């Protein structure tokens, strides 16, 4: 889990949604809609980040792999090598 190719996506996504949910709300100008806009930003960031996190964690340590048909494998072997 300490491999670089995992740390990079993790930090990029965390940073991205962290900025949207934690930093951008401070820059919304004061007005009647400020509360609603801030709520929407925070909730969007939380929901989308959680959804992405679940997707990547589910594939981190797979217990079984995909089962490919032989035709597919032959095709890929001959056409892509």
């Amino acid at each position, binding site marked *: 889990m300490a491999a670089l*190719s995992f740390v990079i996506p993790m930090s990029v996504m965390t940073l991205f949604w962290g900025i949207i949910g934690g930093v951008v709300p401070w820059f919304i100008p004061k007005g009647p809609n400020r509360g*609603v806009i801030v709520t929407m930003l925070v909730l969007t960031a939380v*929901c989308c980040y959680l959804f992405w996190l679940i997707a990547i*964690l*589910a594939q981190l*340590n*797979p217990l079984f792999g995909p089962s490919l048909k*032989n035709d597919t494998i032959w095709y890929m*072997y001959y056409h892509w090598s």
Partner: protein
Amino acid sequence: MDSFFRSEEMCLVQLFFQTESAHNCINELGHLGLVQFKDLNPGTVAFQRRFVKEVKKCEEMERILRFLENEVVKSNIPIPADFTSETIPVPRDVLDLESRFDKLEQELKEINSNRDTLRQNFTQLMEINHLLFVAGVIKHERFPAFEKILWRLFHGNFVLRHAEIKPHEEENMAEDPVKKDVFVVFVQGDQIRGKIRKLCDGFHASMYPCPNNAYARKEMRTNANTRIEDLRLVLKRTEEFRETTLTAAAANLQEWTSKVKKMKAIYYTLNLCNIDITQKLIVAEIWCPVSDLNSVHTALIHGSEQSGSSLSPVVNRIQTQQTPPTFNRVNSFTTGFQSIIDAYGVGNYQEINPAPYTMVTFPFLFAVMFGDCGHGLVMTLLALWLILHQEHFRKLKNELIDMLVDGRYIIFLMGLFSIYTGLIYNDCFSKSFNVFGSSWSVRPMFHPHGPNDTLHDSGHLHLDPLVSGVYSGNPYPFGVDPIWNIASNKLSFLNSYKMKMSVIMGVAHMLFGVTLSLVNYIFFRNLKDVALQFIPEVIFMLSLFGYLIFLILYKWCVVMKSESAPSILLLFINMMLFDYSSEGTVLYRTQKPVQIFLVVVAVLMVPWLLFAKPLLLYRKHKYHTLEFLSSHCRNMADIFVYQGIHTIEYCLGCISNTASYLRLWALSLAHAELSEVLWKMVLQVALRVTSGMGSVLLAVTFAAFAVLTVTILLVMEGLSAFLHALRLHWVEFQNKFYKGSGYKFTPLSFDRMRDMQ
């Protein structure tokens, strides 16, 4: 600011104003649209109210106006749509308008009846013109039946000739040209002529006398022609006169309609107020948002100045125990979401409003179930089209389209989130994107034998992550790995992933709902309930379902062999049954004591939730025997029963609601399978054809693919996911904190009345 998170604070205000200025003041308030009049005469029946006659007069005028509008539309006269009516309707106007309308109605009715008589004469003359050589005129479609009956009656002893009347230009003056035939029958004998006459009457055929010699016939024809010319002139004059009257009326039609509507609303409102004994003062009670009191006051002063009365109206705020209506200030973006919350139940006064959170969680849960970025893109574009051309769609005045236009922002957000979840599910019209390179590779599976031997063993090659090199060790960075799209055991992986995802989302959503109830308790200064209800609820949910989520995440993050991996479902069931006998049931070392502790804690929460609050109330009731309980139930049995129901509902609900969130998995599976079927059985069939005809076949097949995608996948699946996401919000989310038994604030507003027409 905070007004959308919670309904606004309302106050009950008494208004006193003079009878002369009543109309102007109520008119101003109607334009403002911020006050709701309370009914001060709730006991009186409708026809006992004071202004019932005036209301009836207004309704009569509305009827005349509708009749006028019909006539104007029938004559294809355009109604000018400018709207400069800011004139305030006063009682004098009522009488004036009434007399005008009556006169107009009489005139129009006379003109119409005259025109109809003239038209009838005209058609008769035209028919005579045609039949100077024949004997009668009958409707075209009745002619075959007529001929058949003549045969049956006279056994062929007659001669029948008929011809169709070809319509000339003059006959276009008639309103609805009917196809007619002329006929002549030659028979012997007078009695038979009588029979034929009766037959013609039965068939509604008009018979005309046919003179026997040619000279008389020619004279009849010239006579008819002159009379036709005269009648044509008269008809033209009548039509012109009618048009001038109607155009003059049409110019004022909009203004009159709005005036009459406003007057009717004002009289209806006056019916709700109290007139005191001296007939000089009107007392009204209104509900009004506290933040708008100043504007109401200004409007009233304005109104009384306009009517020229000397005294300004008195605004007096009073305290009351009655529950005020619930008012949520919405703009055009938030009104859609607020209306879907209100459809289930309008919130209690000043209860927390779920709408601002629903604005994101509802489209998000929809997108989890819809999950296809191609379909999401189509939906977003459709919503953009609706948003940009909103006025054009509203003019069509179709109910279904109106519903779509009202929900345009909801559909827009649903589409946007669907694109995101589609990218994560890696599903675009059932195909996947490979942007970053898959984490799985097949070649290491070929060692040490080489491809031919490995592949001849079976029809499928099952990649094993334990063989080094097959799985790169790093998961696909964004979403589901594209190799699963071509794998034949795709569903084994996706089902496990989506089910666990649904449970995690569900528990998170419900915890959010329980947290909102904490916010409600704090707002209403109900700290007792925080300790008696909120804390046991949260601990119960966290100790059971929070632990379930921990198990899921732990199993995902820890490397283990597939044979020794315990099933989470079995772990959870054994935990509840305290069954630790079978081997291989531990994920981590200290699992058994931790699980026993959590189950015991959860079970202890049930009596806390069930008994603590009623016992506390019982003790208070014994020590202070005043009307402490007057705002709640009357006796202790009710309190115990209510609390028991709440406990059962919450605890059993935790389990059943968590399972209910599995519909997120079920619907996204259905959607993915449907779109794969459309690809495999519709589009791929055409793409496989290698000959030249393939392009034509592809064009036809693509049309079928597009139609099926839109109707089945976008409309049907979209509605289905919309409904299920709505149900998840209404039931599973809102029953953690929302009471929803208030009544909505319905202010007197002329803009709203105009929009409703």
